């Protein structure tokens, strides 16, 4: 009888462990070493928007932010972390997910944006409703279709998890845990997600590995001719809100939900093209799966919606005419914006 009981317990334990591994859950390692980090402005970048004055990046602050980013304790049922929809290998976008997938199998309405070069952003989200990097995670935390919790719950859960008090002390001097410290630690992590190590960057900065092929050179010339009105270098977005003619009438009112202006209906923030090779699917609702589909849209799919951007309606032509050869050249250039060093940077990955 006794032996049977022991065998049963061992078996149960074995099954539990197997199940856990099956789901890929390895748990947070709160004891990771603090990486030495420093925020630096790349030579070809402008001055960042975030001034870091009240929240300078420190090794321990960054480490705490990284742990918080990967800890599912932040969501209602403790099942989802920031990293669920912001995956490092997808430049912190959500690979293969047209729209975000929150707690209780809830499907959102918009595509999770990639996270990088956030310190240069004045506004956040597809509609620009969030004005500051520090409070930008609150959106996902409190949205009933994403993490579905509230700040008081998050703060008290962190207070109840023994590992956090020493992490907050190391980051901020005392063990106190409040929402401001949570947000500031996360901002230290997210502002450090700087992507400026692509082949394009090396080309611009005349560094090794930056030699463009004839195809890439041709693509870059085309890009400067046809795309950079909206996708301005070096961030590859002018951070404005525009309609690119996806629909005659947009189902999602976009920027209008923030400004309450008819003229902003169906407009969304111009996304960066950096790491675009890794962040499929595309557009605010993730409707296109490939870059070929995106360029096909600009070539022949632009619809004359009410607020269509004037740049996409010139000389009575809707969209941007591109031959098949030009489309290939552009895609070849867009792939020079992929930053492998960034997506492979261990400091940004799960603290396991």
């Amino acid at each position: 009888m006794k032996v049977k009981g022991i065998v049963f317990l061992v078996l149960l334990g074995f099954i539990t462990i197997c199940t856990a591994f099956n789901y890929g859950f390895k748990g947070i390692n709160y004891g990771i070493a603090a990486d030495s980090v420093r925020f630096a402005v790349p030579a070809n970048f402008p001055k960042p928007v975030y001034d870091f004055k009240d929240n300078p990046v420190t090794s321990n602050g960054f480490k705490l932010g990284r742990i918080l980013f990967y800890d599912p304790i932040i969501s209602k049922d403790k099942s989802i972390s920031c990293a669920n929809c912001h995956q490092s290998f997808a430049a912190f976008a959500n690979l293969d997910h047209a729209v975000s997938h929150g707690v209780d199998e809830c499907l959102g309405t918009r595509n999770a944006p990639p996270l990088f070069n956030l310190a240069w952003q004045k506004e956040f989200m597809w509609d620009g409703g969030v004005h500051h990097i520090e409070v930008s995670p609150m959106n996902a935390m409190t949205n009933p279709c994403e993490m579905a919790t509230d700040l008081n719950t998050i703060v008290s859960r962190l207070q109840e998890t023994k590992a956090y008090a020493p992490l907050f002390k190391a980051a901020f001097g005392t063990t106190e845990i409040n929402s401001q410290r949570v947000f500031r630690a996360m901002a230290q992590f997210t502002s450090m997600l700087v992507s400026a190590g692509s082949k394009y960057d090396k080309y611009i900065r005349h560094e090794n590995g930056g030699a463009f092929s004839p195809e890439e050179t041709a693509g870059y010339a085309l890009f400067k001719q046809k795309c950079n009105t909206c996708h301005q270098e070096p961030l590859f977005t002018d951070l404005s809100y525009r309609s690119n003619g996806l629909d005659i009438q947009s189902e999602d009112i976009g920027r209008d939900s923030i400004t309450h202006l008819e003229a902003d209906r169906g407009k969304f923030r111009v996304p960066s093209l950096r790491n675009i090779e890794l962040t499929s699917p595309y557009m605010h609702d993730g409707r296109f799966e490939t870059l070929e589909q995106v360029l096909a849209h600009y070539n022949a799919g632009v619809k004359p919606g009410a607020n269509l951007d004037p740049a996409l309606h010139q000389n009575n032509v809707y969209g941007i005419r591109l031959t098949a050869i030009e489309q290939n050249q552009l895609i070849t250039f867009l792939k020079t914006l992929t930053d492998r060093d960034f997506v492979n940077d261990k400091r940004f990955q799960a603290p396991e």
Partner: protein
Amino acid sequence: MKKNLLFLACLIAITATAFANPPKGKTKDAKKGNLAVHFKNVVDGKDLKLNDSTSFYKNANGDDFKITTFKYYISNVSLIAKNGDKVAIPDSYFLINAADSTTLNQQITNIPEGKYTGITFTIGVDSARNFAGAQTGVLDPAKGMFWSWNSGYIFVKLEGESPKSTAKKNRLIFHIGGAKAPNNTIRTFTQKFPKTLKISEGKLPELELVANASALFQGKTTVDFAKLNFTMGGPNSVIVADNYADGLFKITKVKN
């Protein structure tokens, strides 16, 4: 021995510096006093009771309603001195919550001694703090007065029910906020005191500030709950803010 001498020399140097610069600041600094502010929430003269199922209030349009939540920020308080000068109270942010009686009695501290004839403050939170990132204290977004999807504070929050409301479960949801044109809802309140207020060190004079919740629904625009029962920023919030700009607050008592 050498160490001791060095220590002595340092001590003399420090003492000498201290005497050479007498603490001028202290004599120059005006004395400071505090002021107790008692908030009284009402609906057109009747005491505001949350979740009162026995009796409904009536808005100016004649619509019955009850209130389940009533919260508001006031900030950037200045007292108006007898000579007309505005004396700003630094870092003055207050969150009043009808459901939490401890928030009804507030203190404004560090006011220069003197006589004051009036008060002015922002109904809500100034623009700078709306865009300044993660705040703490009464401005902690955990207080439930911060929009996550459209960053910024909710300045005045009133929730309730009205049989006239066409919303789900007859709900009334008025979350007034927004610090950007054209839907800026920051409003300033200014009033002369019914009698001169004296601030002096060691004393605690009192103000009674009455907040009339029904001011949201009357004034410039009479609100019909069949037509307006939900707003979270935008043009409808501006309508409500324009209503309460003058009528929400009234200083009823000054006790020196």
